[in-house]
């Protein structure tokens, strides 16, 4: 685990929608176990902050954006398959290590 890099995420959701709430829970449960030295998550309401939605060219909700470490990645959907989510997030920031 790369302790020196902090993971930063943006989660775009449609207000208090069911899909949004599900996505948030699925992500937090998985990330809490995975990034033990912490991570940052900001939740963005697409209709309340449309200029940020535009700036990040988000089309779908929910959309999870990985801002750091690079490269950027986006995950579209409510992330209900936690096994898949763990695999995808587990590779983040590991580069060759994760692939090996």
């Amino acid at each position, binding site marked *: 685990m790369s302790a020196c890099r902090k993971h930063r995420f943006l989660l*775009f959701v*449609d207000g208090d929608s069911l899909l949004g709430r599900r996505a948030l829970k699925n992500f937090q449960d998985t990330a809490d176990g995975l990034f033990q030295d912490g991570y940052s998550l900001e939740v963005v309401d697409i*209709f309340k902050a449309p200029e940020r939605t535009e700036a990040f*060219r988000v089309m*779908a*909700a929910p959309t999870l954006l990985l801002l750091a470490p690079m490269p950027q990645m986006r*995950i579209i959907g409510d992330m209900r*398959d936690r096994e898949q989510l763990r695999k995808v997030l587990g590779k983040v920031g590991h580069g060759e290590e994760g692939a090996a």
Partner: protein
Amino acid sequence: MTATDDQKEASKTPVLKLASGIEGFDLISQGGLPIGRTTLLAGTAGSAKTLFAAQFLAEGIRKHDEAGVFVTFEEPPEDIRKNLLSMGWKIETWEVEKKWAFVDAAPQPGEEIVMAGDFDLGALLARIEHAVNRIGAKRVSIDSLGAVFTQFSDSGLVRAELRRLAAALRAMGITVIMTAERTDEYGEIARFGVEEFVADNVIILRNVLEDAKRRRTIEILKFRGTVHRKGEYPFTVLPDQGIVIIPLSSIELKLRSSDLRVTSGSQELDRMCGGGFFRDSLILVSGATGCGKTLMTAEFIAGGSENNEKCLLFAYEESREQLIRNATGWGIDFEKYERDGLLKVVCAYPESAGLEDHLIQIKAEIDLFKPNRIAVDSVSALERVATRHSFRDFIITLVSFVKQREIPGLFTATTANLMGGPSVTESHFSSITDTIILLRYVEMLGEMRRGLTVLKMRGSMHEKEIREFTIDNKGMHICKPFRNVIGILTGKPEYLTMDEMDRVGSLFAD
């Protein structure tokens, strides 16, 4: 919904239209696009969908001071800005002035996207709404729906979300164009069944290969609850104007007809026509090459210029120098008329442009010069750059330009055979022209002579005889009728002896 339901709905709440500003479109759509509705614009690859969608916004800004939002799913905004600069549209400036806004939904190269579970396209809706509100847009173009379906594999979900988007924009009173791909020019309306949710208004752009030539047309398939013209209309794309649609006017137009006469330029021909051509008539002069069509054109122009009328000549067969030299040989001074501002000669090679471009040039010259009479020598030369369909459209449109101005137009057509026979031009032209004059070679006793007859002249008595005419350095001279020859028009002249002539003559004697 049945047609009667449609009418009921229309009578309750009339559908208003938003003038698009695209040249010709507001004529064929009888006012523009249904206001506050979504119109599907479907076409094959390369049918100018993106241009139409962009021009809808550009003309809104330029002609109606209405802002517009361009949602792109395919090309990145920087490409669109660059491409449309060739049309003279400074989109970057408009963006600064808050008249144009992009919603960039084009796929980003190199970015990893993971699909994980359920989602909707609410974020796209949020962005479009935001852009509309930010600049106070009245128009939105979405290009193209097919690209959304390729970005997200669940086409059922995409359809439902696009329906939601269309409904939201309708609630905001925005007039929308959505483009969609077609695979065939004459098949299903669009791919991915998009017509299911934007079925009310459908426009189709075509780019058909016909006789090895490209022909672009636009057809309004349907406008729910309102009227529009039916059928395909040709259009062209010009570098500094964008799409220009040619509204073929039907000939049943409420055109006044005049009984004022104008000279043909030849006293003898005027006499044959019962006193000259009608002022607002179309005259077709048909004949084989070299038998005197250009001479008749020159006399027609000289006749006008001598009466201080402005004449416009379109020449597609000869260069300016040739024309002037020939006319001089017949005692007609084109250069003098030009100096006096009574004549404008426009020479062009048919192959220099597509037929639609020629038509637009002709219209522009007519609008600019405002002539009192027009001659085209020859119309049939333009057949070379035309397809079967487009030539008919061309003729009809050309005729309507001239008719609307209530001026005489003389058109020449070259017949394929030296000795006669019909031409394509004739078959398209003959029913809509008012006067047809045939020029024919006549072989007589080992000598080529020339014959002329007024085949048809609407609304007037005219001579029916075939007269001989000669050409010298004073122009055309019409002489006596060919009395003892039959079969001139069919190209197989036969000579009758005096006996036979007497017999034929007596057949009908009381």
